């Protein structure tokens, strides 16, 4: 773009911020939507490295990222407790849903809770594709199985060990069920023949956090940039933009920063 308003755009000393995040924020299109505004407002460009949740945290631990945007509350807390992070803030949330064949062979619709829904899947041994990768989604799925007092095992339970998108695609290929986050689902759903079979359980809450990596870990960390990103994302402007991002007419993420 042309430098129409050079005076309004700040020029930080170290203008590149490196964000390690999970694939869901990148692939849902949220980051592509909000980051240009961030650059406009602050002068920072963000290098987005989209990886698995665990890998994102590991990159933070190794100081290879300046700031993280992830969704795995327990691991995030452990990360902070170990002193790897400087500051953690809630940013936004969406929810998990159970997807499956449109015909819904296990009859999940109208289940009282997610645990009940899972129980029905296990009862008819309908194919179920699990993330199996210790991601936030996987941890949540295991919680639900625990709540249903079921240890999933057998040929119907496919522990896939892949990313959210791939698991949805596999569930489609196998005509089975899967637990998915709504953001990724909305982004991918047109490529599948699946439908949402269960949603709305308060237990299926999926919160995202932004963590600035402790600057003391390495001199190369762009601490100012990380802070700027974290503050901007939790500012009224950032929160407003998150709320305004829609895909196919649907809101994907709900801002929830509380100072």
């Amino acid at each position: 773009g042309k430098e129409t308003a050079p005076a309004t755009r700040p020029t930080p000393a170290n203008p590149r911020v490196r964000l390690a995040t999970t694939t869901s924020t990148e692939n849902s299109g949220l980051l592509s939507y909000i980051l240009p505004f961030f650059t406009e407002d602050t002068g920072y460009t963000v290098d987005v490295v989209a990886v698995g949740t665990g890998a994102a945290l590991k990159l933070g631990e190794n100081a290879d990222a300046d700031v993280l945007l992830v969704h795995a509350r327990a691991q995030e807390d452990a990360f902070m407790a170990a002193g790897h992070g400087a500051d953690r803030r809630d940013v936004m949330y969406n929810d998990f849903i159970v997807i499956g064949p449109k015909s819904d062979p296990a009859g999940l619709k109208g289940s009282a809770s997610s645990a009940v829904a899972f129980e029905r899947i296990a009862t008819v041994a309908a194919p179920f594709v699990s993330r199996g990768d210790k991601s936030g989604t996987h941890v949540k799925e295991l919680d639900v199985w625990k709540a249903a007092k079921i240890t999933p095992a057998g040929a119907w339970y496919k522990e896939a060990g892949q990313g959210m998108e791939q698991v949805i695609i596999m569930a489609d290929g196998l005509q089975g069920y899967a637990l998915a986050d709504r953001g990724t689902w909305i982004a991918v759903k047109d490529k599948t023949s699946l439908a949402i079979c269960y949603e709305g359980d308060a237990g299926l809450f999926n919160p995202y956090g932004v963590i600035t990596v402790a600057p003391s870990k390495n001199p190369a960390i762009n601490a100012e940039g990380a802070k700027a990103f974290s503050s901007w994302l939790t500012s009224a402007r950032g929160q407003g933009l998150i709320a305004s991002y829609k895909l196919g007419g649907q809101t994907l993420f709900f801002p929830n920063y509380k100072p």
Partner: protein
Amino acid sequence: MTEAIALLAGGDRETWWTVATSLRFSVFSTLFAILPGVPLGATLFLGRFKGKRVAVALVNAVMAVPTVVVGLFVYSFISRSGPLGALGLLYGPGGVILGQAVLAFPLVAAMSYTGLQKLDPRYSETLLTLGAGPWRRMTAIIKEGRYVIVQSVLAAFGRVTGEVGVSMMLGGNIRWYTRTMTTTIALDASKGEFERALSLGLVLLAIALAVNFLSHLAVRDDR
């Protein structure tokens, strides 16, 4: 390194199972890649037909196609809505083996062709003058170039053992079913378990090393 040894020696049942599965897939897919690959390489070498140049370049170029594209390509055939969907190969061992064979076959052909290239032209002339037909010439030239052929087979084995894209895409990395060394490694890497991933990489290297040594016993370098 120590972790790699610990993983295996410690008798982690799942690691051993994964190693065995990887080997099984690789051996079968290499086999299925050799069957068309070696004769194709030999035919490219012996043949004097139009479009030979194009064929050679094509076979060479296929190496640049990412494994995930090969995976997608095969996927379009074996997916439920694909022509071979009824066979139910997707997300099962059959799918992985088929995909890996499709991946390795041009490699085998290209490397066989290149290797045979350096064979003394008097061999094929002698075959011709003694009246060998196309089939005999092919088999004889494969025999003369067996050292080179084994090298190309080893390379193919290495390639399928080490690739991730096809195994992920067509096998689905399903635990106790289609999970291989490489998909485990990819999973570990995505989980941030970098040390474990590296250790498993070393195990893979050790396996490949062993296979290489064994093959040397079978066909000795005759220099």
